[in-house]
């Protein structure tokens, strides 16, 4: 028990003194997961809106693919991204295996279906005649898309946060494609696993606290957003 207590004390010490290694790991996590989330934002919102508003043959199948993608196990993504980025693999010439860029790619693959799926639901949940009303106001197609996305901005924001929450806490893919290299591709989650394995509980707890704080902040914002209603 005092082991855990010791761990917490050391953690506070590390955090307050802004230990450079811990700080570096945190910033890298934010940078990597933030970038991946941004990519998933562009890809996800555009594709989710497109599928929501168009009727095409095979639509049901695409929707089920998206829903499956939302629950895609991150380690599976990690494995396949690794295979693609191997030196002797199809994209080996890019030489991005074991770099933060590879983690960004893997995390973007994980987050995009999440953002797409929630966007799809959010747009479909808008009043069905809203699209007609916007067209009736004389909007061009692009104006209409922009207005619909703006109307759904709150759930879309929640989608982006769900994507971010999913990837900042992800560890399997990050280890596989990133390599957990000190000072280079080591992020909060991979560092926590490693420090735990080494028995450095104090550092592991410090990293966990940071991760929890980030998760809490995301959840808090999400809750605030969900409390709002839509107009009639």
């Amino acid at each position, binding site marked *: 028990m005092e082991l855990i207590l010791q761990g917490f004390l050391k953690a506070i010490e590390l955090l307050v003194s802004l230990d450079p290694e811990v700080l570096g790991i945190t910033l890298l996590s934010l940078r990597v997961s933030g970038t991946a989330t941004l990519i998933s934002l562009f890809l996800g919102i555009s594709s989710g809106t497109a599928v929501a508003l168009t009727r095409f043959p095979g639509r049901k199948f695409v929707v089920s693919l998206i829903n499956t993608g939302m629950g895609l196990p991150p380690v599976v993504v990690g494995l396949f991204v690794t295979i693609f980025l191997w030196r002797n693999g199809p994209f080996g010439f890019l030489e991005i295996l074991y770099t933060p860029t590879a983690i960004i790619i893997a995390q973007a693959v994980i987050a995009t279906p999440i953002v797409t799926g929630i966007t799809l639901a959010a747009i479909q949940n808008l*009043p069905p*005649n809203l699209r007609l009303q916007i067209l*009736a*106001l*004389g*909007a061009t197609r692009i104006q209409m898309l922009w207005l619909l996305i703006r109307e759904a901005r709150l759930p879309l924001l929640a989608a982006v946060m769900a994507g971010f929450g999913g990837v900042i806490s992800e560890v399997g893919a990050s280890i596989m494609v990133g390599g957990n290299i000190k000072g280079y591709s080591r992020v909060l989650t991979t560092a926590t696993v490693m420090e735990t394995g080494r028995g450095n509980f104090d550092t592991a707890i410090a990293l966990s606290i940071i991760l929890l704080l980030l998760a809490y902040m995301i959840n808090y914002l999400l809750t605030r957003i969900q409390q*709002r209603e839509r*107009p009639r």
Partner: protein
Amino acid sequence: MTMSAPILQGKRLVVKRGGITVLDIPDFEIKKGGVLSLIGPNGSGKSTLLLTLSCLLKLYKGTLIFNGRQINNRQSELDYRRQIAVVFQDPLLFDTTVLENVSAGLKIRGVDKRERTRIAEDYLERMGIPHLAKRSACKLSGGEAQRTSIARAFAIRPAILFLDEPFSALDPPTHEGLISDLNRLLQETDTTAVMATHDQMDALRLSDRIAVLQQGKVAQTGSADMVMNHPINEFVASFVGMDTVLTGTVREILEGDRMILAVGKREIEAVGDLPKGEDVLCFVRPENVILSTDSPAEHSSARNTFSGRIVRIAPHGLFYRVDLNCGFDLISYITRSSLDSLGLREGQTVKASFKATAIHVIKKSS
């Protein structure tokens, strides 16, 4: 009100849904100025026609012609939509302030901010809600929201204003307030309007012309008076509230456009111009059937007086509906006070009478 060339024409309009034809109208016209109401039972195609005319629903076949120009490609569709406005049953407001909502159409058209605010504030004033300008659209009552939606539609000064059951979701007092404001604004701005509604009172109040829809086709178009009092077939007649439908034959023609009709074993005098021997349908509005317990007054101008037995008395909104058997079925509406003062009960025999002009006769089409 100017009634000249049609502002919008529809030719051979056909709309299909799931392979089934839901709208089939060979010819349709909206004249400039004035209000046209589309009425009909649920599923008759009112909303479908409205959405088709506002170019929001795809035509399977047919064309729309606006101010003489055909609407047949993306650009002409967009141009057309920029000159009309649509108000739906739900206000469908945007998640922003009331003022932003009302200026939304103007913003889409690229009007600069100061101008849009000015116009929007003007129409908020005209709809009686200037104090709501900064309010969030999420915090409005049903009536306030619909006023905002209407203000938003008027703000773009549409050539045609389309309304799809705009008051259906409102409670009576709100409904009342809104319809009178809408009426006023329509007249002030001399806006051509087309309104789909199932409320015949609204249709009568607001419109000059009424089109009755039946299963995707137009059963009758005409002035409000024509449609309401001279329906051309049984469907329209029953829809406009002529509850009593009788079959008979023309027995005799009298002078002055009067006829004697044989209905069952009785004779009814009516006004009309049909040949002797013709099989006919007759309609009487319940409001025009007067009940009394006295013997027929000699000076009554109602030729048609019959004694009948009350089969049923049932509440009908603020009135009571009395079903009678006079040798034929007759329906009458009376007020509560009349019911009480006459002391009517089921099974009682009373006198029912209606004017010859109150009975509407048409040829019976087999």
